[in-house]
């Protein structure tokens, strides 16, 4: 059987990647809670939306494949929103 935790671990890695990206470039506070009661609210989801809008992606608030692809692209180290 496919190890469920493997999937979870994969999701964790992506979530960590995104969390790091949002902290570096979108002013996400370092201790932002990743998971909240409602899946479509909370600081991380809001920041994902902000990042998707800025970079010209479909604003889903989710870690869709497009978003994951974009955050692994080479880029400038200066933040995207005012630091």
């Amino acid at each position: 059987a496919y190890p469920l935790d493997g999937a979870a671990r994969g999701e964790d890695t992506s979530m960590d990647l995104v969390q790091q990206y949002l902290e570096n470039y979108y002013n996400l506070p370092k201790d932002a809670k990743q998971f909240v009661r409602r899946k479509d609210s909370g600081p991380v989801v809001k920041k994902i939306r902000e990042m998707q809008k800025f970079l010209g992606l479909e604003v889903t608030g989710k870690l869709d494949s497009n978003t994951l692809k974009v955050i692994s692209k080479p880029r400038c180290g200066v933040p995207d929103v005012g630091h």
Partner: protein
Amino acid sequence: FSTFLGTPKWRKTQLTYRIVNYTPDLPRDAVDSAIERALQIWEEVTPLTFSRMDEGEADIMISFAVREHGDFSPFDGPGKVLAHAYPPGQGIYGDAHFDDDEQWTKETAGTNLFLVAAHELGHSLGLFHSANTEAVMYPLYKSFTDLAQFRLSQDDVDGIQSLYGPPSASPDDPLVPTESAPLGPETPAMCDPALSFDAVSTLRGEVLFFKDRHFWRKSFRTHELEFHLISSFWPSLPSDMDAAYEVTSRDTVFIFKGNQFWGVRGGEVQAGYPRSIHTLGFPPTVKKIDAAISDKDKKKTYFFVEDKYWRFDEKRQSMEPGFPRQIAEDFPGVDTKIDAAFEAFGFFYFFSGSSQLEFDPNAKKVTHILKSNSWFNC
């Protein structure tokens, strides 16, 4: 586009830069020319100039580094962060750092140094990131199949000119003085009832209303109205122009200022301009023209100078005999000095100060008197 918080910008136009060290990936002269070219693209659209220093503290210090390099923003090895730079200011501010764990190239393979430097030096001049995916200041690296196609986007030009204005008219003109002098007349308010225009012309189904350093473009099709710096479309054209008209059969707009004129096709100023207005057949006594209209049906262009006008035959490309004539005689009701004019829907529109006369050339009479900015739906 966006600028850094507090809009930091250089308080002078003559800036210095220094390449502090070199990447082993490229010959030194390739690094030198990549940086030079990256500075040049910003120099072309601003009054800024850049001179190189080989020692000491320059405004913009350019260096290559890996991992932790003394600014609390360590690089991260190959990929991901390629470089970063700091907004204008003293010390580390204005500097640009390049991650030497990248494979820097001068072609399109690997990470092209010129492309990344163009972006980072935008930061050194005060631009923050742009959400416009076509802009140099868009945060993600984008390679080009053909580097010769590289251009600053409109967004980049508008951004940098919001900080420094357009290039000064010509290299021998005095440099833009320090911040105490205004960058030029304030931006004109489109709904100011006293608004007047320097020149008005059609262009491929739009109307361009020129004023000082700016122009409005109004589309007859979408009725959209945009406002731009003249220099953001045509860096070599003058501001405060005298007249403009379109010859649709040649897909060309002619722009006049003083005793010179330019031919413009779309966004390109045509080669061989400016030319003297006297090549059109004006006598030496005419030093400038006030307005011009080209009648596409009759293939005649009317040039208005004070209270007289000349008529130019577009087919024979020569001024017609028997001119100048009195404007008021052949255009009854048009008896004030004309600032600008254009032809649309079979009417001639004459602008004089804040008033606009709609003239029917067949009925030979003024049919409406309007405000000059009536086209802006104020």
